[in-house]
């Protein structure tokens, strides 16, 4: 291997035979994928076959790191888990800020491929010298924190809770307090009887140019600390600080996405959380942003709720009791379940009950039975067994498809897209389903940072593609996606009412066609600018030639590759849809612009992507080197 920054090896273990070996990975592979989720997609692409399912013995879990993780770069501890999702049947790539990835690199590996299934609960223990398959029968059944407490304290960890053991379709994997939350990766762990993975080592990461990297890291840290989003808003209020602007912009999902505003939003806002519940903020390893809230539950200091949890277990259930949300967040973390999907499922069940389609004990605004329902879901008891399968399957059984709020089977996050139509396009086209980040997170431009026209369709397809691709590459490098906020000019953010801000907001949309050209011809952006530090960090860490244009190209490869993997796994043309509530019902009755004009935007999106009805054309796949014929 000539590149630095990487550990240099990929470990492949077989839980069935309890054996392990090295998986070949070359510099050409590194050049093509960078690392992270794109590396995982590449590995899965070589392996998957039509008809493969999440619980097949041959479904691989691929855990990957990025080249700038472990190199002293700020906010770069992220690792990724990709697999066939039991919730959606297609690839899910779930990102996590816990310390497992850094520890895996120190043990000498850039990635871990887990194959096969164990007959009995197993704890996979990885260090520099050996890999052990330890008996995990004493861990099986434990909640997330007690499980991690029983593992070597200094090791990086990945564990599941009872929800994963019982294969709740949206069970997650925990690493410390951080989660690989979406898509049910925890259920795949559970299906393989894999309760825990630990990694430990002392191998230092060698970098290409130590002095230049140190200089870049210093600039990057200063940039993050001085930017209004990453240096002030996120540390002070966390992602919870988004509740109020979401309310103002009518994008706070309320009553199962029936509305975009909640009268009692102040009671569950980030301001309220900070004022009356915050103990301190904290963050992932290496992070300078520190957006996590720490709060008290039963006198214990624990991780507090993020925006998604606040919004979806609050307004979306017509619940204004912040203390209940704080407690539920803790309970769901201990059981090991995705708060977004749980909340989406509960809201759907409430509406099914309200409409007389399914009689169940769940009602909007009623909170006294929710904790019990969480336990029922985690252990698949009673109605919990139905709720554990997600909103899509519930709608197939009970009806109500138009208000089962999911995309491709994965429940949507908290942004109501009828007042942020670009986000709606992103939700529909996101490879893994209803994910705001894989969607391109356009809502940051449509009201939560900039204020571009949230209802116009002009330029949205091109802007979506740009951010989808670029964020793919950022994630592949090992960086937290919040670091990308520094691309938004600080003076505009500090003066949102100024003439300059108005010009930027109008200009951004007007530049849509130009951004479209940039997407098609990324070599035009084969430059570097001081504002965007990723290419410098990658170059100085690895020795790899890197520019903004190359990052766009790598991201485009990754996005198309994941999409093609989904097609191989059976995703049909026309799968980029949203529920009828979001496309056919006006958020504000009588105001025609307040629904997502998806069909119109999809035409432009597919044209820009080189896809046909959601399927990459052969010419596109050949151009990207994904297929040869």
């Amino acid at each position, binding site marked *: 291997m000539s590149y630095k920054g990487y550990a240099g090896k990929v470990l492949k273990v077989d839980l069935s035979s309890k054996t392990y070996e090295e998986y070949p990975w070359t510099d050409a592979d590194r050049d093509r994928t960078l690392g992270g989720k794109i590396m995982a997609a590449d590995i899965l692409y070589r392996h998957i076959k039509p008809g493969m399912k999440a619980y097949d013995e041959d479904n691989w879990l691929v855990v990957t790191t990025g080249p700038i993780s472990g190199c002293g770069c700020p906010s770069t501890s992220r690792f990724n888990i990709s697999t066939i999702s039991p919730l959606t049947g297609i690839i899910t790539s779930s990102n996590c800020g816990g310390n497992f990835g850094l520890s895996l690199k120190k043990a000498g590996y850039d990635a871990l491929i887990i194959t096969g299934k164990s007959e009995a609960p197993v704890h996979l223990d990885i260090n520099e010298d050996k890999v052990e398959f330890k008996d995990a029968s004493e861990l099986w059944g434990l909640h997330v924190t007690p499980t991690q407490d029983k593992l070597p304290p200094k090791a990086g960890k990945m564990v599941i809770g009872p929800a994963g053991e019982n294969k709740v379709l949206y069970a997650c994997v925990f690493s410390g307090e951080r989660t690989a939350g979406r898509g049910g990766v925890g259920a795949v762990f559970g299906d393989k009887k894999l309760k825990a993975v630990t990694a430990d080592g002392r191998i230092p990461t060698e970098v290409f140019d130590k002095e230049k990297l140190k200089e870049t890291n210093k600039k990057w840290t200063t940039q993050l600390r001085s930017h209004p989003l990453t240096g002030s*808003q996120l540390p002070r209020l966390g992602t919870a600080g988004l509740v109020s602007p979401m309310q103002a912009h009518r994008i706070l999902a309320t009553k199962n996405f029936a509305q975009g505003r909640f009268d009692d939003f102040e009671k569950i806002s980030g301001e309220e959380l900070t004022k009356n519940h915050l103990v301190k903020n904290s963050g992932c390893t290496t992070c300078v942003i520190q957006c996590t809230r720490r709060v008290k539950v039963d006198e214990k200091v624990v991780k507090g709720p993020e925006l998604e949890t606040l919004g979806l277990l609050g307004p979306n259930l017509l619940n204004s009791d912040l203390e209940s949300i704080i407690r539920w967040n803790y309970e769901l973390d201990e059981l090991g379940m995705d708060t977004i999907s749980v909340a989406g499922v509960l809201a759907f069940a409430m509406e099914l009950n309200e409409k007389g389609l399914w009689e169940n004990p769940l009602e909007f605004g009623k909170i006294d039975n929710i904790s019990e329902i969480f336990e029922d879901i985690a252990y698949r008891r009673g109605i919990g067994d139905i709720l554990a399968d997600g909103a899509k399957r519930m709608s197939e059984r009970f009806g109500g498809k138009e208000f089962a709020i999911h995309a491709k089977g994965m429940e949507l996050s908290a942004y109501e897209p009828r007042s942020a139509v670009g986000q709606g396009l992103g939700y529909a086209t996101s490879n893994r389903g209803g994910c705001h980040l894989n969607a391109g997170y356009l809502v940051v431009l449509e009201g939560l940072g900039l204020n571009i026209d949230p209802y116009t369709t002009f330029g949205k397809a091109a802007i979506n593609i740009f951010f989808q691709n670029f964020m793919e590459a950022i994630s592949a490098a090992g960086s937290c996606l919040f670091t990308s906020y520094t691309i938004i000019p600080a003076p505009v953010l500090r003066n949102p009412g*100024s003439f300059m801000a108005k010009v930027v907001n109008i200009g951004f949309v007007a530049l849509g066609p130009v951004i479209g050209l940039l997407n098609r011809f990324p070599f035009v952006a084969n430059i570097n600018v001081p504002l965007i530090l990723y290419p410098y960090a990658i170059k100085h860490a690895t020795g790899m030639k890197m520019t903004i244009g190359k990052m766009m190209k790598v991201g485009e490869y990754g996005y198309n590759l994941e999409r093609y993997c989904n097609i191989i796994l059976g995703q049909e043309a026309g799968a980029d849809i949203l529920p009828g509530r979001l496309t056919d019902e006006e958020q504000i009755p009588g105001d025609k612009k307040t629904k997502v004009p998806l069909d119109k935007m999809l035409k432009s999106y597919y044209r820009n992507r080189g896809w046909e009805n959601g399927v990459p054309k052969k010419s596109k796949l050949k151009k990207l080197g994904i297929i040869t014929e």
Partner: protein
Amino acid sequence: MAKITLKCFGVFATYSNFDKGPVEADTLSDVVDFLNKSNAEKEKIVFTKALVYLNGEPCGKKNKKLKDGDEVWLLSAFTGEKKEKPKKEKAVKDKKGKVESEEKSA
């Protein structure tokens, strides 16, 4: 003067002396003046630094006339104020070569 309700969000709320309550004001500009008087020792709030909503709708006109019962929201819309850099002490030598401390902006 109109009797309105003012609500501040974002860092305005958490780092000012006023987060919500009744205010008397003729225009949106008066509302900002009121906040600056309440936060005399803190960084001045400038109209363009906030997203201003009047009765739930965005309103960028600082001379907009208010009426009784109006509700005004001031959001620092996912921005945050520019943080004052902490002052560091720097050791310097006086004329006699004795080390003294001097405040210096970082």
